[in-house]
């Protein structure tokens, strides 16, 4: 089951440049929350702070508090522990190129020492079915490399890989920006179904996409959270002038 995320006064830096300023927001469990905003506004940095991926960049740091369920992300847990409970899907599909489709999906479990073959088979099948890829790859699971799939299939493979470790939260950083409309449609449909089991935070440049998949939307500008509300409200009657300017295409 998904859990809620509470972010309180989150600040982030790259070296001396501040990328996020005092972000405070509460993401509801088992819903999809979209993060929108112009390029360079800190959307990606924000989601990467939620699972402490931000700090893998040299000289990057973050301060503030993030709670995911009962888990205190920046106090008392290791980054590795956090990331096992928060799945992440990246902008560009990044399957492990030398691993088979099966091994790609099982990677998170296998690399963390899980070796029950029968259970792994079940988990791989379930994850690939969840990500709507099973029918396309079930005959070549162990024969083909993850890199041999098409872009859209690769991204669904990456989603299956993230789901296999049974996270409570799924972070998606522009998951469709490298995909064609058909693959995008499939992944949006997927997000719709996955909400029942996971809490989803999705960064997107595509406002129609935010509108289609998310119940809540946050608008970021220059590292600040300008407005955070129900998606419907953001897109019809935003309370901030800057939000309105952005969604009506006056800038950004």
């Amino acid at each position, binding site marked *: 089951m998904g859990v809620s995320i509470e972010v309180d006064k989150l600040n982030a830096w790259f070296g001396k440049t501040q990328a996020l300023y005092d972000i405070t927001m509460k993401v509801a469990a088992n819903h999809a929350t979209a993060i929108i905003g112009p390029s360079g506004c800190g959307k990606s940095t924000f989601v990467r702070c939620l*699972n402490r*991926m931000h700090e*893998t960049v*040299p000289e990057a740091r973050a301060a503030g508090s993030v709670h995911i369920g009962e888990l205190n992300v920046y106090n008392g847990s290791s980054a*590795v*522990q*956090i*990331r*096992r*409970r928060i*799945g*992440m899907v*990246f902008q*560009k599909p*990044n*399957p*492990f*190129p*030398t*691993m*088979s489709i099966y091994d790609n999906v099982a*990677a*998170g479990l296998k*690399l*963390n020492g899980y070796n029950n073959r029968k259970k792994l088979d079940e988990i791989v099948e379930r994850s690939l079915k969840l990500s709507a890829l099973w029918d396309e790859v079930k005959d*070549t699971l162990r*024969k*083909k*490399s993850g*890199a*041999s799939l098409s872009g859209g299939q690769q991204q669904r493979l*990456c989603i299956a*890989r*993230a789901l296999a*470790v049974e996270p409570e939260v799924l972070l998606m950083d522009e998951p469709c920006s490298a995909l064609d409309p058909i693959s995008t449609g499939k992944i949006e449909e997927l997000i719709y179904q996955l909400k029942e089991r996971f809490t989803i935070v999705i960064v997107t440049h595509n406002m129609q996409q935010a509108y289609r998949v998310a119940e809540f939307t946050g608008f970021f500008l220059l590292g600040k959270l300008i407005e955070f509300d129900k998606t419907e409200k953001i897109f019809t009657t935003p309370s901030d002038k800057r939000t309105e300017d952005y969604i009506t295409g006056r800038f950004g």
Partner: protein
Amino acid sequence: MSSPADNPSEFTAPQISLWRRGLNNLVTVAAITAVIIVLVPLIAVFGYLVYKGIGSINWAFLTQTPKPPGEVGGGMANAVAGSALILAIGSVVGVPIGIGAGIYLAEFGRNRLGDLIRFTSDVLNGVPSIIVGIVAYGLVVLSQGHFSALAGGAALAIMMIPTITRTTEEMLLLVPHAVREAAYGLGVSKWRTTLSITLRTATSGIITGVMLAFARVAGETAPLLFTAFGNQYWNWKINQPTAALPLQIFTYAISPYDEWHKQAWAGALILIVLIVLSVSAVRFVAGRGMLKGAG
């Protein structure tokens, strides 16, 4: 309105100027010439070796030890075995150290120590092989009190390390950052990611680097002169003087006997063939594990 699709015959491709066509041909010819210039020495060396050496290769040559000067017959079997022993020692020592250093440089070496190691290894790569032999002589032969396969292996290992270190580093750096991020995102620790993801992704490139280093040292004579020293008889002990193909070829080639000259040619041919065979065998074995479409 008419569009090009209505009447395709009206639209012909624009004429490419004579100048551009001429330049195109010129560059193509230049490229082919370059390929021929590269291939000619290779084929010439191999062809000449076959021409000079094939006559002396027979069953005895491949199975017997050398005969005293003046006697006809005998072979270099002990030298082939000795080379294998010395190269095995060199690889067992050199490959793990080289790959380990390469991993350090690629994954943790963005600092002063890393720069120092990079510089040192580039300098080591340029050190003449005879000097590497002297170092191994000083380190191993003097402390043991006698020549040995171990000393020869140590010299070859020192020569292999810089090549392997730098190619491993290069190959690991070619693995996209996104692949590492994918592993971190799954909650895989850094060391586990390095070993199971990054290294595995770069495997085929690293094998190429190792084979390159192996093939290079397999033909080295100078570092073995006063380390492995050579031996007229069979030897399997790593702390005894040991024959090696390049040494045997050297000794025979500078001797005054015609019979030995012929055997030196044959030995050179065997050396080249064995290097090609071992490199291909490793490639074949490593390639079998590859998946369809894997990078």
